[in-house]
């Protein structure tokens, strides 16, 4: 069911949502969170689509905040979608004029009671997510450093403004790699004395993996530019020889270690929906991310 409300109010939107739910027989009783997406007209379609697919795993109310024409008079338009493809409900909120500066006053009455709030900026990174009005509403704030022009600078900024509850999709993208790396070192291996991560230039996920490895292993881990796609290689140096995981095609990883046959395993790059699904699974602060991100606080200076 789709409902368009023009020049409306949050009260009218809440009424429309309630009515729609009743008419559909009380669906969406089990919604577990509210996901606020702060984006613009150009990116809203992809973001809402990914979120709505992820809401199949995490039924939620999705509020898409789109700020338009700041010079117009204040106006709120809403587009409500209930019971379409996902178990949750989606509301596109278009805010015109000075209202755009007070988006939180529109969003707050529409948050689901008794459940957590997550704010996601798919394509813009606010200077300090926790102090952004839309971020202040949420206990979980999801940015994407890869969306910016110079991801490493973005990481430094995020590090400077970090508050518990912040997280970044470039860290989420690291999970499959980190899981494989951890599993690799589950097997007995000699002492690791160094390492390197090879990836396309300007890949924040590679930076984060290198920082994580260096932090956990207590050895220097460099990043090396390669042709991609994404991350192509992680190599450990040890007394017994090199352990390497290569993924030249973005799909299959080859694991080689001294004295053992090469092993292969599928390691595909995940789409936004899968990343969001992982991100929404736990909503408490990610302490490991905090530790890793902290190493970027002065990174902008350290890199030649």
């Amino acid at each position: 069911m789709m409902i368009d409300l023009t020049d409306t109010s949050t009260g009218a939107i809440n009424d429309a949502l309630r009515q729609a739910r009743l008419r559909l027989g009380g669906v969406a009783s089990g919604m577990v969170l509210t996901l606020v997406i702060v984006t613009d007209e150009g990116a809203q379609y992809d973001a809402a689509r990914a979120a709505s697919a992820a809401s199949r795993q995490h039924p939620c109310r999705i509020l898409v905040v789109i700020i338009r024409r700041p010079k117009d008079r204040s106006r709120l338009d809403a587009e409500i979608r209930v019971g379409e493809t996902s178990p949750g409900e989606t509301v596109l909120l278009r805010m015109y004029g000075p209202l755009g500066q007070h988006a939180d006053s529109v969003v707050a009455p529409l948050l689901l009671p008794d459940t957590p709030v997550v704010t996601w900026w798919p394509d813009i990174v606010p200077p300090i997510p926790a102090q952004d009005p839309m971020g202040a509403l949420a206990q979980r704030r999801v940015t994407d450093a890869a969306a910016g022009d110079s991801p490493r600078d973005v990481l430094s900024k995020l590090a400077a403004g970090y508050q518990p509850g912040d997280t970044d999709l470039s860290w989420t993208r690291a999970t499959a790699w980190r899981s494989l790396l951890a599993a690799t070192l589950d097997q007995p291996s000699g002492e690791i004395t160094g390492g390197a991560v090879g990836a396309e230039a300007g890949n924040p996920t590679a930076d984060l993996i290198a920082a994580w490895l260096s932090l956990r292993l207590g050895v220097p881990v460099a990043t090396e530019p390669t042709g991609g796609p994404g991350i192509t290689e992680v190599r450990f140096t040890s007394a017994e020889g090199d352990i390497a995981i290569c993924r030249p095609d973005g799909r299959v990883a080859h694991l080689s270690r001294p004295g053992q046959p090469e092993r292969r395993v599928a390691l595909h790059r995940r789409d936004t929906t899968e990343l969001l699904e992982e991100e929404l699974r736990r909503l408490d602060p990610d302490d490991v991310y905090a530790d890793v991100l902290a190493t970027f606080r002065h990174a902008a200076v350290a890199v030649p």
Partner: protein
Amino acid sequence: MSTVNPLRDPRDRRIPRVAGPCVLVLFGVTGDLSRKKLMPAVYDLANRGLLPPGFSLVGFARRDWEHEDFAQVIHDAVKEHARTPFNDTVWQQLAEGIRFVPGEFADDAAFDRLAETVAQLDEERGTGGNYAFYLSVPPKFFPEVVAQLKRSGLSSPPEGPPGRRPWRRVVIEKPFGHDLASARQLNEIVNSVFGSDSVFRIDHYLGKETVQNILALRFANTMYEPIWNRSYVDHVQITMSEDIGIGGRAGYYDGIGAARDVIQNHLMQLLALTAMEEPVSFDAVSLRAEKEKVLSAVRLPEDLATGTARGQYAAGWQGGVEVPGYLEEDGIAPDSRTETYAALKLGVDTRRWAGVPFYLRTGKRLPRRMTEIALLFQRAPHLPFSATDTKELGQNAIVIRVQPDEGVTVRFGSKVPGSAMEVRDVNMDFAYGESFTENSPEAYERLLLDVLIGDPPLFPRHREVELSWEVLDPVEEFWAEHGKPDQYPAGSTGPASAEALMARDGRAWRRL
């Protein structure tokens, strides 16, 4: 693990548990269970990135197949039954490690070829000499297979430095015997070759999310445990009903019956999880200790004639289809006394449960497929309403729905809107499908992964199996000596004797 992996951090909850390098050897690859559950579960694990690089799967069966034929069988099974979407890259990686060894259990040469095959996989794919043997075959073949595994040296890993010694594990499915004596015998056979830490008994109910949730519900919350006892609970009903008949399982089912097939394992495990005390921790040892304690406190009714009931489905209409009775099924003797419905009234002799009956029932050809644990509470000691106001008020209940629609229902009285004070039962509902993912892992995924990781809490140990048989054996003996099962029409809710069992206590079964 001899040393701590620096990349593992308990705070790091994004990184899942992944199995180490290993081979899964599957006996009984042509069975329904293999095709519908095991093979899809292996693929789903691979697709979720939980299987190690180089993971290999070897099938052993009396079939004239090449590796490719076996891979094709798995491919078809995965396409049809896997939970996660089919991904060609994942499949290609998995397919590279698929092997097939044709042969019979009596054939020494075939097992030698199996040993060569896995050794070769260690060479080619780095599986490190770690093998799990999944015996998806009837128990009568266990002695032969286990002896062959021993003879061919497959059951004993080579020596290795501490923490680096390869492992060998064996997975067996129910039935774990058909009485206490046979269960012990079966255990001796398996234990003669595999140490008890290497034996994984699969009761797939324990892999289900809702069943694990019983522990979370009880021990992670404060609301339930204070009333989870004889002071508040009137009685407990544990039900597993099936709408299907015996299908093609006549050979297995006849002579076994509903009590041995379902109550001894699934329902007794559910009873144990519902009734047990809080374990000191959730490791295998503590959990097992509490389950064994409560199982050893289970008591049968004094009079088995009135405290148990059994039935056999007769011809009738089930779900709009006319179906034959049990005695008319193919492969069933017309004078078979095997029960297809069984109900028991049990007591749990502990301070917590003294005087609270646990009613267990299971049956085939009942109206619908459903498994649940229901705690029915005592009525309020005093109702400050008139009798007519509360006419429609039943007993408060907490119902744990194991399948389908996994979740929890809390039933309580609520005022009916209007000017009169009327109280009626309403439900508060939590459904897994709504609040979490629409696709939580299949029980077999979880259990297979636990086997490959070597994580034992969800697998019943031999002592639990024995304790369950100790409860059931006297019932089976009594039934064998006294008459035969009552007939009930297919599609009905069971024999009249089961209704009478409850009626004698002034109670009634929950509607199926």
